[in-house]
């Protein structure tokens, strides 16, 4: 009871915080950056942060963005899915038979990542605040005026060298700019395809069965098609056309038409 009550309380403040963040979602450099900002609202040492609370805050943020019909990049949704999974792992009593890392281990690693990113930002600021050559201290203003011996030497930079090599090795590839989409399936393509098919999906179906013909044999094409199909499924789920589920980490992802 008390736990439930607290969760509600949390989600109210979370929702308020989420609303404030949504205004400048463009200012975040991806999910980890957003998580770090969210973690500051807990006002504790990063080492004592509650990952569970953080997961709730993040999910509230994504939920709010959905309500406002805001476009969130796919990696935000992937992180949301992962955090939802983590949340469930943290709340459920540990299953001794379950394979893979425990919820605590995953949470500890996320906390580590946040602390490390925060630390890198702090030292980056410290670095830039140092006295800098040409701004705070200076090299000799003149290059020596003694001109006794004149010898011509030639120089080149590593960049010249690499660009030179790249130029030769790709000369044959050069042609007027066209987008090579041969081995790349875009999310738009996958979306178009799935919209046509989804009407028939009354039962739970593995999303791998939505992969287009001819895209499964070649590993490169298969990888691209898998990514595009998955991203498209998230998009369709977001739009409310389908339900999506996955029973376990790395288990098949299944979808069905929402009724």
């Amino acid at each position, binding site marked *: 009871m008390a736990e439930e009550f607290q969760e509600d309380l949390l989600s109210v403040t979370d929702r308020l915080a989420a609303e404030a963040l949504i205004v400048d979602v463009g200012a975040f450099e991806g999910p980890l950056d957003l998580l770090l900002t969210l973690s500051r609202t807990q006002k504790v040492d990063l080492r004592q942060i509650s990952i569970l609370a953080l997961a709730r805050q993040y999910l509230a943020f994504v939920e709010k963005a959905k309500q406002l019909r805001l476009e969130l990049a796919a990696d935000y949704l992937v992180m949301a899915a992962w955090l939802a999974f983590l949340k469930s792992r943290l709340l459920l009593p540990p299953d001794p038979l379950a394979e893979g890392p425990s919820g605590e281990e*995953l949470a500890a690693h996320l906390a580590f990542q946040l602390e490390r990113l925060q630390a890198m930002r702090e*030292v980056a600021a410290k670095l830039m605040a140092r006295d800098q050559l040409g701004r705070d201290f200076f090299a000799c203003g003149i290059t*020596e005026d003694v001109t006794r011996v004149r010898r011509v030497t030639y120089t080149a930079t590593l960049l010249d060298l690499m660009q030179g090599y790249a130029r030769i090795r790709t000369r044959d590839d050069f042609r007027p700019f066209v987008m090579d989409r041969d081995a790349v399936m875009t999310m738009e393509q996958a979306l178009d395809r799935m919209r046509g098919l989804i009407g028939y999906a009354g039962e739970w179906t593995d999303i791998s069965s939505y992969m287009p013909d001819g895209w499964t044999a070649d590993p490169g094409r298969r990888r691209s098609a898998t990514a595009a199909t998955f991203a498209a499924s998230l998009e369709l789920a977001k739009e409310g056309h389908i339900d999506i589920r996955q029973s376990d980490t790395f288990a098949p992802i299944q979808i069905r038409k929402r009724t």
Partner: protein
Amino acid sequence: MAEKDEKSLFEAPPMAEQERMVEAILFATAEPVTVRELEARMPHGSDPAEAIVHLRKRYEGRGINVVKVDDAWAIRTAPDLGFLMQKETVEVRKLSRAAIETLAIVAYHQPVTRAEIEEIRGVSVSRGTIDQLIELEWIRFGRRKMTPGRPVTFVVTQEFLDHFGLESARDLPGLKELRAAGLLDNRPPPGAMLAASEDDETEDEDQSELF
């Protein structure tokens, strides 16, 4: 007689004279100069390392100082007098936040691969960020990593140390604390098996081509 002449020909100049020579060479060279270079340019038998010790002492507290950069030496103005130098200041190209963070990650985690930078920042490193840092000569390619795929690594350069007034990468601010806190460890995500890390490698490599 001839023997004596020959001897004096190879005798090193007195230390005071060697100090003058080092002073002149460091003054005339914008880039830091290594002891080995000094040795090559000074008369046979000179001991530039000792001359530098004297010279450095002589310039203590002066308007210009002898500073160590990596394994080389340079003369630089004292940092507290920067305010006099407005005229000399060249506008440094403003670095993006991504570039600054990437630079810090290379400095503190070197040698570091592109995939590791991305793992720490949580986003992919945009084209041009690395390019810009290489062009500034603040980072360069290091040894390849002995992991699957043998990815190239990045390390910071002597120019980087010179620019930020660091004697060596060990003097980076807060380095000890970060190391003590374990924040510089390469900690793989839990459950990442060898196979998984191999997968990651290829994934990271091909990312820019897929999307």
